[in-house]
């Protein structure tokens, strides 16, 4: 899927929202660590999302009766994350994200994904709208790590995609014509 189609998809998803849940002492934040591993030829992605946010998501999108077991959460997240988070190569091709697993702890749910890495790849285009359909104030910080160097970006609701590059331009994508 090209970035533009992905965007449309998300807007449809967001339009489904009915009510806005609001809580004090909630952080409206997720954290994603993207490690580019040239030696392994893979890009390892770990999303850290608050457990209670996922519970809210499940209530929003599923008529979830019964216990929220790890299997229920994982099945749901498999569908959800693919709509909310995507990586693209510099030429705009969407990278296939392999689902590895989730890990549920008291505070956080960790979601593990993996993508193939091109030889010598130094650039990633990222779309991150995790929980933007649920919370207007959700901010998602992404760390991209390559050979010990880290570059970060924080996605707010309504943000464009973002290009992070270790040998080229870093900024909102697509770039404004200069």
């Amino acid at each position, binding site marked *: 899927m090209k970035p533009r189609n992905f965007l449309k998809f998300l807007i449809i998803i967001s339009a489904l929202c009915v009510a806005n849940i609001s809580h004090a002492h909630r952080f409206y*934040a997720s954290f994603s660590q993207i490690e580019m591993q040239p030696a392994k030829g893979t890009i390892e992605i770990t999303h850290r999302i*608050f457990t209670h946010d996922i519970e809210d998501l499940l209530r929003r999108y599923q008529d979830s009766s*019964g216990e929220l*077991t790890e299997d229920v959460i994982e099945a749901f997240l498999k569908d959800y994350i693919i709509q909310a988070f995507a990586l693209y190569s510099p030429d705009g091709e969407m990278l296939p994200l392999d689902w590895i*697993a989730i890990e549920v702890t*008291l505070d956080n749910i960790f979601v*593990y994904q993996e993508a193939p890495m091109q030889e010598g790849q130094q650039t990633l285009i990222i779309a991150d709208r995790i929980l933007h359909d649920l919370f207007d104030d959700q901010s998602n*910080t992404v760390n991209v*790590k390559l050979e010990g160097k880290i570059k970060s970006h924080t996605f707010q609701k309504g*943000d464009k995609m973002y290009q992070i590059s270790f040998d080229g331009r870093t900024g909102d994508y697509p770039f404004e014509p200069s």
Partner: protein
Amino acid sequence: MLKLRTVIMGIMGGALLLAFANAQTIEQVNDKFRQLNEYLPTANVYRTASGAPGHQYWQQQADYKIDVTLDDENQTLTGSATITYYNNSPDSLKYIWLQMDQNRFDPESSMDQKSRAVPRSMTGTTMEMFRKYTDEQTFDGGFKVTSLKSVDGADLTHTIIGSMMRIDLPSPLMAGATTQFSIDWWYNIPDAKKFKLSRQGYEYFPRDGNRIYEIAQWYPRVTAYSDYEGWHNKEYQGSGEFTLEFGDYDVTITAPADHIVAATGVLQNDADVLTQDQRDRLIEARTASVPMFIVTPEEAVENEKSRATTTKTWYYKAENVRDFAFASSRKFIWDAMGYRMKENGNTVMAMSFYPMAGQPLWSDISTQAVMHTIQVYNKYSLTYPYPVALSINGPIGGMEYPMISFNGARPTTHEDGTRTYGRMTKHGLIGVIIHEVGHNYYPMIINSDERQWTWMDEGMNTFVQNLAHQEWKEDYPLGRIDPRNITTYMTSTNQVPIMSNAESVIQKGNNAYAKPATAFNILRESILGNELFDFAFREFAQRWKFKRPTPADFFRTMEDASGVDLDWFWRGWFYTTDHVDISLDNVRHFTINTQDPEIEEAFKRRQEMEKRTHPSYFSNDDLPKRVDEFPSIKDFYNENDEFTVTNKQRNEYNKLIAGLEDWQIEMLKDDSHIYMLDFTNVGGLLMPLYLEIEYTDGSKEEMRFPAEIWKLNYEQVTKMIVTEKEISSVVLDPKYETADTDMFNNFFPRRILESRFDLVKEEARKRRDMLKENLEELKSLEEYQREEREKDEENKRSSERKFNDLLKEYQ
């Protein structure tokens, strides 16, 4: 590994062995151990340099007498207050500022709504976001002040600026003087779910048409006036919470007669508002060993069917609190138990109020969690000074006020009316109640300025909350205070320091909750140790209870009471965004040169032999040698290699020994192993060096060196270790205590480290196999054969059918 074996010449001089700093001069401005002079204010008579209140410490006081009516029909609140303001400052005041925090919901004056920006790249929005925007624009929120008079009945001039109101006094209020004024107002109560971070409001239950009200920020509150900030006139924008004065409250709340009203303070007129049964149960609950219902679930269900046309007035009094909040609903179940504090024998009434939607979880957990909080926080902070502690279930996810907390977690109600809850909801509820009740200590009693510093109350509270988790049950997950969990955040390149204003914090959960709480955990477990930390941390609470501490007072008290200079720690963790990444670059092995030629020449011979690894040294050994065939050509050099000790060498050695003192001769005989451990500070944040040394005999030893090891050079340092035994490996920070973000460079020799990702991947593979394989039904060979036959027959039948259909078409 560890093959490097260098020889140290001559007499040992300790200093010679230390690696010196590379830099010739270190500018004072870069010294990570310099004191926090540029950050901390100069001490004065109000605040001492040791972090305690000074001998002329003062703070203002504001007492409130309020009558308020809750209109359930129209969701409005109408109040009338007489405020008594005590000017304890040495200054005379021409005006008084009040906080009008409901004005955040008034689109005309809301700094929160006006200061909200959208991303530059935004070209459209969702219908949902747009509706929310228009909802906010059309909600008629905010205080409507209908009267403001001085004590003698004269109207007072006032000016409203956003969420602040200035009252001009007829004559300046002199130091030590008191003034009184009366104010009447009303406002529309917001639907808590419609506003972000509303922290108060109502929740509507469509099933029975009832509401739960959680009422706060409901009266004009006197703005804090302090020795370090003057009037704390920073507008309420939603993120930065409150900064208030202590005072006594005398409040009557008029609500529909079938409502239960829970509030800050002690109910004064139980005979007017409770049934005789309820009053008897309250008395019994005071000494009960388990929480008892005051209003039973059955009574609550009965209550919510009615619609009272009359009202009742609940009279509450609270002393020495910095705020007042209440909750009201006809849906409330109410349970209570007296908790007798072992510190002073006083009993605190722990009570919970919740709708049926909270059952069965709430009656099991809430009041227990309230008591647990008091029990643990009393130990680490101060003895709970108030007579009640409340936990309310309503629309607000988690919010704290003195003696009363709003906690949102509840089971899921399904279409058929049944309710279920998961393990996570249960733990979430325990966690949030401990957190919100814990806020009674930080900041309701230890009155830090929430509008400036989120981390002071949230960071300290999150830290003690996690200590309380540890005492709830065994193996309670560490969560937010585990140094491992903060590492990815700490490497992100777009953070702000902890010492940032509450409104400007990015990633608030990590910045103001997790990072300071982790820092305190590291101080407690690793740097100071439990005993020293707990003493200092408690001393801070004791010094500042019912007072107004600043970050400087905290930093100073922690050092003052622990006797440890921690400026380097505050500087790195609170004032910078550096992260921890220390690399153990190399471990070099040395032994002492004994100077004895018999030993040293043999050592050189062994070293030479070790170099001879190439096959040609050995492959020709079996060939006959000429000197064996013609022995007469052998001489001295055939019998002796270049490492044979000569008499000249022996004489020189004896001469050397004759010239040495006895202790010097002893030193030469020392056969210790000397290791040079080279460290590089990659991340910038200084931390102590915690080492696990493993010896070749398999034994292990822990060594801990303070952060001050970096005092001369905070980029590179070498530590010398002298041991009897030979080292086989060294691990830096083996217990993951320091939040080191890259563990790969912590091992010597390097190890292939399985990342969290790898481990999970491995586990996922295993888990998938196990589960799927076990769930599969066991089938016999015959069954498979039968299935195969059936499949074949079915295929045959279906192809025949297709063939026949085709035939029909053609016929």
